[in-house]
């Protein structure tokens, strides 16, 4: 694999191998596939990627990926703009949107505090959220970050930042998964579910 018949081929393989989860062999297969395609197919492929990087925007209001200055969710008048769900990444927005249960707006932080990855509080995007809170537009923020150490730390950072404002700060419930058999739940989750048990009355209103 180390002797390429062409420099161009080698460069293309290197480029693909730089993608996450792609090794040299897969990269080579992908490049060979592209090479066998018609000219216009490959040109379209290349242009798509160039346009993606050049033209994509980040919503000025929520920092989600968008084609416009303000994303469709933030522009939607029917959504509840006083309820903001704080997430780490655009993937998380998609996951919550897929539930069909949420009608507020979002705020995308773009990362979690993690010195190991070189990310500090200043690397998170919080300005648009702060602005909304200071204007009094927000009644509640829902912290919907991963239940990792880094997610918890970021939760705590945001809590400390906004605790003196009138905004209600909530976080996702942690517990047994829906449809899960109790005996298969891990001990830590089960322990937490018992500590944070809920009123039965509230369970059938959902």
């Amino acid at each position, binding site marked *: 694999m180390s002797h390429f018949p062409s420099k161009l081929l080698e460069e293309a393989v290197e480029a693909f191998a730089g993608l996450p989860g792609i090794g040299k062999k897969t990269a080579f297969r992908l490049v060979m596939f592209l090479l066998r395609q018609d000219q216009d197919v490959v040109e379209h492929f290349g242009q798509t990627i160039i346009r993606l990087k050049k033209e994509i925007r980040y919503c000025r209001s929520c920092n989600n990926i968008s084609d416009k200055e303000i994303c469709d969710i933030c522009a939607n008048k029917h959504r509840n703009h006083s309820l903001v769900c704080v997430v780490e990444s655009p993937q998380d927005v998609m996951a919550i949107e897929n539930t069909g249960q949420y009608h507020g707006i979002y705020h995308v932080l773009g990362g979690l505090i993690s010195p*190991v990855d070189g990310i*500090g509080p200043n690397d998170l995007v919080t300005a648009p959220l702060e602005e909304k809170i200071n204007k009094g537009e927000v009644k509640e923020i829902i912290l919907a970050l991963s239940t990792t150490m880094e997610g918890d730390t970021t939760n705590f950072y945001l809590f400390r930042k906004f605790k003196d404002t009138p905004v209600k700060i909530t976080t996702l419930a942690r517990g047994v998964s829906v449809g899960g058999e109790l005996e298969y739940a891990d001990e830590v989750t089960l322990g937490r579910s018992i500590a944070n048990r809920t009123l039965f009355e509230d369970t059938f209103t959902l």
Partner: protein
Amino acid sequence: MNNLYLNKLSLVQFKNYQEASLAFSPKINCFVGDNGVGKTNLLDAIHYLSLTKSFFNNIDQQNILHGKDFFVLQGEFVKKGHSEKVFCSVRQNKKKIFKRNNKDYERFADHIGLFPVVMISPADSSLILEGSEQRRRFMDTVISLYNKQYLHALIRYNRALLQRNKLLKQFEFKRENFYDELELWDTQLVVPGNEIYQKRKEFIEKVIPVFQQYYNTISEEKEKVGLEYRSQLHESNFETLLVTNRDKDRVMQFSTVGVHKDDLMMSLNDHPLKKTGSQGQQKTFLVALKFAKFGFIRDLTHTKPILLLDDIFDKFDAHRVSQIIRMVAQNEFGQIFITDTQLEHLENILQELDTDYKVFKINEEIKTVIPGGET
């Protein structure tokens, strides 16, 4: 209390064994032979079947007989009167296979605790001689056995500590609001840190009387021993400690306070064991500590663990040896495996006691052990 013993063991290409198959006494079993014949390897095979891994070498493939490409261990345990077959095979470049009664395990962790063993080996001396990490690990492994939340707290603590230490090394690049950011990680350390501290304290409080009793029995009450849990959290609460040591942490570029600095102080007649204890005294200390661990596991699993005594007579005087054998022959202990280079002094003690035992002479020339031995 459940009765547990290993009835049969067979080895194929495990360590220095080509093939061997043995049937044991439910009480005392002695492996006798010269250095290097593979007495300890038999104990390790039993350790494998209990804890899914070697006591000595964590790399499975390295336990295969030299020049071969797999090993197989099979054991027949008897627990509560039922026979239970445990199978373990390791193949070069393949995943380890572990089965109980012909069923594969999805998680090896599910096996641990079913057939408990406690190994007492000369390698335990690291607990006295090496750094405090060994002694924290001793506490952690025992507590984790009965408290799953504890293990979770340990994982969280170590993660937060890693992040906090990383941050302390980045001070030069982010002077602004540095302490604000540091405080975020303090909060993450404090919750699991306090939990770990509490659990270790409770554990040591429970261990001390048991440990002291065992020590006195073995030494026939000749020495005064001490075991004490040392933690910076004794003096002040963790949160305050973190705040008062901030500047120091910043200069040192790592976290100087917390349960990751905990230690166990081991003493003999009020002096540090490491400096003043003779080798025999140190070994008595370790054996008593391991017996205390044995008692803990027994009470938790309602099963008497199988006791593996590797080279137990090394460094002990005749009195202590006979005290230990007398003790383990009693009813509070279950099945025992002992290795020794000579049969005489062991057999003298065993014959005195009214207990069932079996001796296996491990033979150098053929790596096939003749089962049975003398009874």
